[in-house]
């Protein structure tokens, strides 16, 4: 079974977010970019399935301009076998991303698509579900455990209030949540090997997908700063305020 792992280039999760002075977007100049943490977890899970003998090949796929090669190499250095880059200058909307990935998944005949549940920039949490809808496949989102048994994927999902385990008929789409695994440290020789692994390039046109857009970001602002409230004089006053004013108890 081949596993397809989409990976995205996003702001490094340690870097503080700044907003452009004109409020048009987040300021990414001079900003470290990295592989989306949830995507990294997805790569790790795919590698473990391959190492367990369940999968034959792990293919990383990334949508973006030439510079995303950095993140592709990161996935290859972790152990992905080969990669595909879909050359698009600006990041398409989730529906288009899902359509592009669907085409690649069809071409590669991937039995499992293992991906991050969301990207830490857009925080949309849509592509995996859309991809499953487009392909008419079952979806196991917010996965914290994944097991392949026969022709089913058993996925334990993190849901409100607890955990739910579902059995998905393969081929399926699984999206990774934070606790699925702890990605491995990359080894130095593997970084060197990564450079020799094949990276195929294709375009939306080659895949027969139109890059359309129906959403527009008008502006971006910093979150409202919290203001100082009041100092209360006693415990009694505090309890009264919490109960009757703030109504949180």
């Amino acid at each position: 079974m081949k596993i397809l792992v989409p990976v995205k280039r996003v702001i490094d999760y340690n870097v503080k977010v700044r907003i452009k002075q004109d409020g048009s977007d987040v300021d990414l100049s001079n900003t470290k970019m990295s592989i989306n943490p949830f995507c990294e977890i997805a790569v790790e899970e795919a590698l473990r399935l391959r190492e367990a003998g369940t999968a034959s090949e792990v293919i990383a796929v990334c949508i973006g301009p030439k510079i995303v090669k950095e993140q592709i190499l990161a996935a290859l250095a972790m152990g992905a076998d080969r990669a595909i880059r879909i050359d698009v200058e600006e990041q398409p909307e989730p529906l288009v991303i899902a359509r592009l990935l669907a085409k690649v998944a069809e071409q590669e005949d991937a039995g499992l698509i293992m991906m991050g549940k969301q990207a830490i920039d857009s925080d949309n949490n849509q592509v995996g579900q859309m991809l499953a809808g487009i392909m008419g496949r079952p979806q196991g989102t917010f996965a914290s455990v994944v097991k392949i048994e026969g022709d089913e994927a058993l996925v334990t999902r993190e849901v409100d209030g607890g955990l739910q385990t579902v059995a998905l008929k393969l081929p399926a789409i699984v999206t990774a949540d934070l606790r699925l695994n702890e990605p491995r440290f990359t080894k130095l020789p593997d970084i060197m090997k990564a450079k020799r692994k094949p990276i195929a390039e294709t375009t939306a046109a080659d895949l027969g997908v139109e890059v359309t857009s129906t959403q527009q970001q008008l502006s971006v602002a910093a979150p409202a700063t919290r203001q100082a409230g009041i100092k209360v004089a006693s415990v009694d006053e505090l309890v009264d305020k919490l109960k009757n004013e703030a109504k949180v108890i």
Partner: protein
Amino acid sequence: MDTPERESIEFDVVIVGAGPSGLSAACQIKKQAAEQGKEVNVCVLEKGAEVGAHIFSGAVIETKALDELFPTWKEDGFALGQPVAKDEVYLLRDESRATELPHWAVPPSMHNDNNYIVSVANLCRWLAEQAEELGVEIFPGFTAADVIFDDNGKVCGVATGDMGVGADGEPGPGYTPGMDILAKYTILGEGCRGHIGKGIIKKFALDSDADPQHYGIGFKEIWQVPESQHKPGLVVHGSGWPLSKGMGGGFFLYHAENQQVFVGLIIDLNYANPHVSPFDEFQRLKHHPIIAETLSGGERITYGARAITKGGLNALPKLSFPGGMLVGCDAGTLNFSKIKGVHTAMKSGMIAADAILEALGTDADEKGTTNFQQLFEQSWAYQELYNSRNFGPALHKFGPIVGGGYNWMEQKIFGGKPLLKLRDSKEDYACMEPASAHIKIDYPKPDGKLSFDKLSSVYISNTYHEEDQPCHLKLTDTSIPIKQNLPRFDEPAQRYCPAGVYEVVESDGEMQFQINGQNCIHCKTCDIKDPAQNITWRPPEGGGGPTYPNT
């Protein structure tokens, strides 16, 4: 710790540190090797998560070395930075007044015509791109933890740090042992007070004929300022307030591109008053009208600090050792009279490359010796260090006014030929005087607009370390901070550390020395300034530390 066997990999040259000196060495080796039809494998280890993440500098640079290394850098489209348009020098008399020095009174070494205001981090990123295109392997996120010696005591490479070791010292679930990177030549380009360099200098007694090295701590913030306050290309230097008598140092304010300014303060680490907090000196500096008029209404983008090697020629150790050499600030190539170290660091790296290429494949390989020392002494970089050898000592000895005057005379009237042989033989750490001999300093509280507290400053350095790892700051004697430094010096680590790593806290009625290793911004000041020389900085797990943007 029971560990699986370490793997090893061989290169011809391993370079520690993807800074200007290391990357220049890497590029030069590959370029020269290609010209000479030789095949030379080079790798660069960088502890930061990406190239540039730990690079921290003012900076106004001379392009001399860059011009030699990549003569067509400009034509090839490299946007180096903001060309310098104007120099201004001020003496800050107190918190509100300043005197501008007329152009003729400024030592020539501090004139910046034809220079550029740059982000050295971005310069390194560009150099790394060139290096990779030339076939250099660069490995960010990997520390060189220790050097490896062969049976003859020659340096034959470095060992990268283990990853995934828990706070208890035991392998965690993701444990991945480091590797031995074996090489014929090891170039140490770790920057100021590199931990491997420190050990090598000691082991081979490379500093036996030199003055003790002298250091400064350099603070810097990048600010985005209102357009009306931004004068691209303006370079401002100065000294005086807030630094009190006996404290060497000075400030800088560079107007870079994109409405950003680089503002900073350098304080010599030989200061005597243990109550001094270099961080607070920097924060209050920004309230001086000369600085405040530029920063007001602006947004602080990043903060950081780094120690600076400023002893100059008198403190320069021997540069070569069996199996390798020291380059850049790891050696001490900064020209303090210009307050510039990038061009000389790059040149030292290039010369190291030439020396290695000369030696590779000859008998010298066995001993790991090269002509680096001689070649360096024939270079313009050495000449600069020679001409400015007294600048630092003059300031240390005579203070900023008389010392400055001395330097002016030496440069302007005597054309740079040193008048006297000035030595500065007291170690920086030994200069600290008892707390009882000095009055405690009441620093003003930060106003949240121009000045800020330490923790919110560290916050915007994007510093991160994996939580579950051993503390990388080692105390030789764990009792010294409370038993010795606290009563004697009021444990100055609480103040000289720019990141709030060291605290003295009361716990269960006892005073305890708390080390918040996760805040560490890898500046090395503690390793330098601890009066008991009890703190040893070791690299934490690779990839940790600050993530500086365009510093």
